[in-house]
């Protein structure tokens, strides 16, 4: 019974997602095409000029010689068949490009999430236990800075600090160009490149989760069941990290689920600043070039990703809080 209700829950969520994705397609397709100018102009700019014949031919090849409705219909038809189209400027199917770049973005985002959740929650928990200490004030102020700093500015500052003045980390790229060696040599090199961009992306969330988990932890610590746990003689470590944390982390999870889209947007900025070859950078280049199929493909992919992430978040809720499962 439990599994069949779970099945219905999943089906309901999937059905709810369909109009969201359709809306994303129609709205963004229309907005992109209504903006003045078109990708053929980008082609002219990069080519150093064009004749009327060349421009006409480029528009024909890009499908831009058709009406907006016709283009939307053709595109929608392709998407339903799983075809996200062909990039105007990269000369490859959009799906291939996304699959090529997504691992780099996933690596960046997952590392940032790991840093954000662990460091954010850890500092929040520590601060909650000594709310009036100097350390607590220091972490609070640091959190404020992390929260207020624009991502791209922070990235530039980290590059200056740790690539130029203290040359500890590379300032751009994902791997040293032309590097050869064993898998571990390459992995080490990628990790070395990953530090600055991952930290840049994570900092705002570290700050946010620190404040959130601090507030949540303070509330939970005052609960009856925590008082009971202490009265039973359990160690403080057990009380905090086994009993209190489990409930205190729920708001962090809620916020995290909502912020997946925000994370992807942040990834665009971070990937551009650090020349990290992920989907965010691909999106940035696509926007600059008005590469409509590429932009649309990434938007569709991202919206599905966000929907999935929210679904996983909801399921995780059930794992962490048995009361939700029973409901």
């Amino acid at each position, binding site marked *: 019974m439990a599994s069949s209700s779970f099945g219905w829950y999943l089906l309901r969520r999937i059905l709810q997602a369909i109009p969201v994705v359709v809306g994303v397609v129609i709205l963004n397709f229309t907005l992109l095409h209504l*903006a*003045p*100018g*078109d*990708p053929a*102009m*980008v*082609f*002219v*700019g*990069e*080519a*150093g*000029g*064009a*004749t*009327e014949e*060349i*421009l006409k031919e480029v528009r024909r*090849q890009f499908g831009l010689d058709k009406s907006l409705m016709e283009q939307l219909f053709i595109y929608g038809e392709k998407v339903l068949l799983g075809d996200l189209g062909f990039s105007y*400027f*990269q*000369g490859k199917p959009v799906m291939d*490009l996304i699959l*090529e*770049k997504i691992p780099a973005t996933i690596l960046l985002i997952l590392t940032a999430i790991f840093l954000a959740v662990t460091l954010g929650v850890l500092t929040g928990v520590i601060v909650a236990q000594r709310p009036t200490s100097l350390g607590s004030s220091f972490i609070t102020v640091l959190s404020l800075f992390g929260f207020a700093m624009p991502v791209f500015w922070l990235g*530039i500052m980290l*590059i*200056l600090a740790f*690539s*130029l003045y203290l*040359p500890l980390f*590379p*300032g*751009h*790229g*994902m791997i040293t*160009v*032309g590097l050869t060696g064993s898998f571990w040599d390459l992995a080490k090199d990628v990790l070395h490149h990953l530090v600055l961009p991952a930290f840049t992306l994570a900092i705002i969330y570290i700050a946010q989760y620190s404040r959130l988990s601090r507030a949540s932890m303070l509330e939970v610590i005052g609960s009856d069941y925590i008082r009971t746990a202490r009265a039973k003689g359990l160690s403080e470590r057990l009380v905090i990290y086994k009993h209190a944390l489990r409930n205190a982390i729920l708001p962090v999870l809620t916020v995290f689920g909502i912020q997946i889209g925000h994370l992807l947007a942040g990834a665009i900025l971070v990937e*551009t*600043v*650090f*020349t990290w*070859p992920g989907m965010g*950078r*691909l999106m*940035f*280049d696509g926007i*600059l070039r*008005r590469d409509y199929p590429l932009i649309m493909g990434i938007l569709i992919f991202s919206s599905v990703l966000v929907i999935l992430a929210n679904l996983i978040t909801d399921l995780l809720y059930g794992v962490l809080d048995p009361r939700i499962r029973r409901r």
Partner: protein
Amino acid sequence: MKAGKMSRNQLIAVPLMVFLFVFAFASGQALAQADKTPRGGTLKMIYQEPTHLNMAIVSGTPTGVPALQIFAGLVQFDENFKPQPYLAKKWEVSADGKNYTFYLEEGATFHDGKPITSEDVAFSLETVKANHPFGVAMFRAVDRIDITDPHKVIFRLNHPYPAFMAATHPLLLPVIPKHIYGPGEIRKNPANQKPVGSGPFKFVEWKRGQHIILERNENFFRKGKPYLDRIILEFITDSNARTVAMETGATHIIPFSYLSGDDALRLAKLPQFAMTQKGYEAIGARTWFAVNLRKPPLNDKRVRKAIAHALDRNFIVKEIFRDFGKPATAPFHHAGPFYNGKLPQYELNLNKANQLLDEAGFKRKTDGMRFSLNVDWIPTPTNQAVCEYTREQLKKVGINANLRASPDFPGWAAKISAWDFDLNFDSVFDYPDPVIGIERMYISKNIKNLIWTNTMGYNNPEVDRLFAEAQVEQNFAKRKNLYHKVQEILMDELPLIWLQEGGFYTFYSKEFDGIPMDVWGVLNPYDTIYWRKGRTG
């Protein structure tokens, strides 16, 4: 043998030995000289990522910078615009200027080992003519191509066309292999992404958004070259990251002012770096305001002259362009062979500007303004700064300039193509011959709904006639005279208000030498570049 008398054999042998000794010594010296150029090393560059690597169908520099390493051309040019041998070891131009004969290097091959022949050269020209933005302008006069000899190409023109030679630079006429690019539609040819050429470097890989790697072509027809092992071209879109890459030594050369001006000026003071503005003369970059002559009051020459007098070119160059380039003093680039340096100038003179506007009948109203106009520009910070400066200057003479920022390049291009502008700040290349890059802006048959054409709507039959006559005039002095007359007219009529020219610079690490500094500069093969710490001997 008797003492004091030499035998016949000795009479032959001694001079022969002397000759052989001298020959060996000279050869040894030559070889020793060639051996001394260090070999090896990887040159790292940063520039914009191209869409593809086929120069036969585009003229953009993002394609040109890497593709010129992959594709050779018939000739190169020296610092005086004089052609020098490249794939063509020599050439002849007939007395009537209608036949150009090129003799190709024998034994030259493409990267796949196939020989380069006259058929490939002919195919290359036909491809450029049909597909390149300037194809018709450059090669309209070519009537037919004789390729009966595999190492001799004869271009037969239907009339003299002095621009032809300038158009044989590899950026404009790369020699591409017919067996690779012949079949199918050229714009969709997969070799555009993985090219096979004949240049000093072979294509290795292109990781989109990251880099292109090229490696030495061991069978390059210029024996002993190139010196470098590899070239890596990286694509770093963030300006600060580029500066850090240069400063930390992660890159060695950034061309076309792709390193920000302030950072370039700062880093140039360090002993390990150098910066040069040489090598951009053939490109002939200019900036100007294009004036929409269809719209009153801009259709009045006095109004255009007033605007010209309201702007201080020295200030624009010094303060906005950070002293890169120089003030424009003519419709043609000062480094070009047809530049007219004797034209009257529009110096900053607000009184004169006010006087002209009064004479044109545009008196100041109660708010102190005479009329309004829109100003557009390609969205970059420098361009915006020029337009903001212009707004303030025009305010002083009673013109209300409304700045219309465009969100991106296509947004700007859409307005200009539709002739929806009053003043448009733009940057255009002259290229090495007026037929290629200059006349397109002024001839009436090029009034088109396309950027980088005569979007101003300028129509002067005398200018059309002078350009047409100069196009086919073989005598250099006469041709120069014709272009000088054109410039006199243009300077008086001001369809464009020229502001600044040049301005590009190459920033590089002194670890490398041999960077080309002729008129095409970084738009040359890098077979002369070497790493000072490379292997010698």
